[in-house]
């Protein structure tokens, strides 16, 4: 809990706190998002899985080289995603990793082990660190993303996600691969996004918006770091982990035999990135809730995580004393911590 703030009231069903933006807490202690979940009657996992597999069947083997370009961080979720795409769905994949300068050595070792074991081509992209440092500095100052983005992830993570998505779509367009796949789990992406066909023009609008936001804070030179997507074609966006009965035990049983090992130096939540904890701490101080609470609450609603486990994960906060190296690498000083509230 942030200093000086009273303990938030939490939904008795999912764990969301009353500090969560846009949330209404009903008299029985259940939050409005739980009520919406009950009313929404989303696709069952089986229906959405059938649609995903039909889409995969439609494109498998049709393009010259790759069926799917995969956003691959080397973390446990995207490692399992790659395993499923190759071994279960027999797709020809190109894995793309963006090294943001904070990817730990064990994650890079895992990437080599998993891509070798699965016989997958792999591209590692390292954007200029000077640019990334500016992006992270601005992320920590706040206001770089739309207000609702704070309900999904930390400002730092949202910046990374925007750049990574842009890179993988760009790579898919370049290789004429029909599918772009991400290892997002429930609560990280909309419920209806297990498989979506999206016109490039719609993705181009998102790319233009990202360019504008970065240029506004970093100058026009930042536009060159974001690809645009002219043309009338479409890509399929796939988030297969939404329909794969996600559980940590299950995924570890599949990826550990490939040589994947859990890093020990990535903080409380991440399995590839040392910067994640700084994003969590800044987010908690600024907004008054943990950036993972939205996705963990969704997993509780869907029954893939217990409420007790979700509470345990969001109540453990990083210690700023252990983040000095990351703060120094970003060229920040302690004045930015505590991070300004909005």
């Amino acid at each position, binding site marked *: 809990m942030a200093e000086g703030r009273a303990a938030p009231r939490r939904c008795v069903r999912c764990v969301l706190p009353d500090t969560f933006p846009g949330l209404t807490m009903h008299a029985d202690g259940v939050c409005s998002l739980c009520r919406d979940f009950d009313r929404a*009657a989303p696709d069952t996992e089986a229906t959405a899985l059938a649609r995903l597999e039909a889409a995969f069947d439609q494109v498998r083997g049709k393009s010259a080289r790759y069926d799917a370009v995969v956003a691959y961080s080397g973390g446990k979720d995207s490692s399992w995603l790659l395993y499923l795409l190759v071994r279960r769905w027999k797709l020809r994949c190109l894995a793309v990793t963006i090294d943001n300068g904070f990817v730990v050595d064990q994650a890079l070792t895992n990437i080599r082990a998993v891509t070798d074991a699965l016989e997958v081509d792999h591209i590692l992209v390292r954007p200029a660190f000077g640019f990334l440092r500016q992006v992270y500095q601005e992320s920590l100052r706040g206001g770089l993303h739309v207000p609702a983005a704070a309900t999904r992830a930390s400002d730092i993570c949202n910046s990374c996600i925007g750049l990574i998505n842009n890179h993988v779509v760009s790579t898919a367009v370049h290789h004429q691969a029909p599918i772009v796949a991400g290892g997002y789990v429930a609560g990280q992406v*909309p419920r209806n996004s297990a498989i979506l*066909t999206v016109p490039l023009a719609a993705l181009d609008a998102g790319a233009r*918006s990202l360019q504008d936001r970065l240029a506004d804070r970093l100058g026009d030179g930042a536009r060159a770091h974001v690809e645009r997507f002219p043309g009338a074609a479409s890509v399929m966006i796939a988030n297969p982990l939404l329909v794969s009965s996600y559980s940590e035990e299950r995924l570890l049983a599949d990826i550990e035999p490939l040589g994947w090992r859990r890093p020990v130096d990535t903080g409380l939540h991440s399995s590839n990135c040392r910067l994640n904890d700084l994003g969590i701490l800044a987010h908690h101080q600024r907004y008054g809730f943990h950036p993972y609470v939205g996705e963990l609450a969704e997993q509780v609603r869907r029954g893939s995580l217990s409420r007790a486990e979700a509470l345990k994960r969001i109540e453990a906060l990083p210690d700023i004393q252990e983040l000095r190296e990351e703060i120094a690498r970003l060229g920040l000083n302690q004045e930015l911590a505590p991070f300004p509230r909005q």
Partner: protein
Amino acid sequence: MSNAARDVIVEYLQATFLFDLRQERLDDRSNLFEAGFVDSYGLVELVGFLERTFSIRLTDSDLTSPRLASIDGMVRMVAEKGGAISHG
């Protein structure tokens, strides 16, 4: 129907994308993407909301239509597709 659809859409937009129309001095013709409230993630959510709530199906051209960026455009899109509010 249009007024009822508008009310449902406005309530959803304000709660999901965290803005207040009056406070932000926006109106039904304002472009919510350009105003900095909806991003590409939000677009996917928005499409899911419209399809689910009004029992309609959006096409590729709908996804790139400027109408999807404003309340007025969304209301007209729903009306043209014969959308009805689903109480499921």
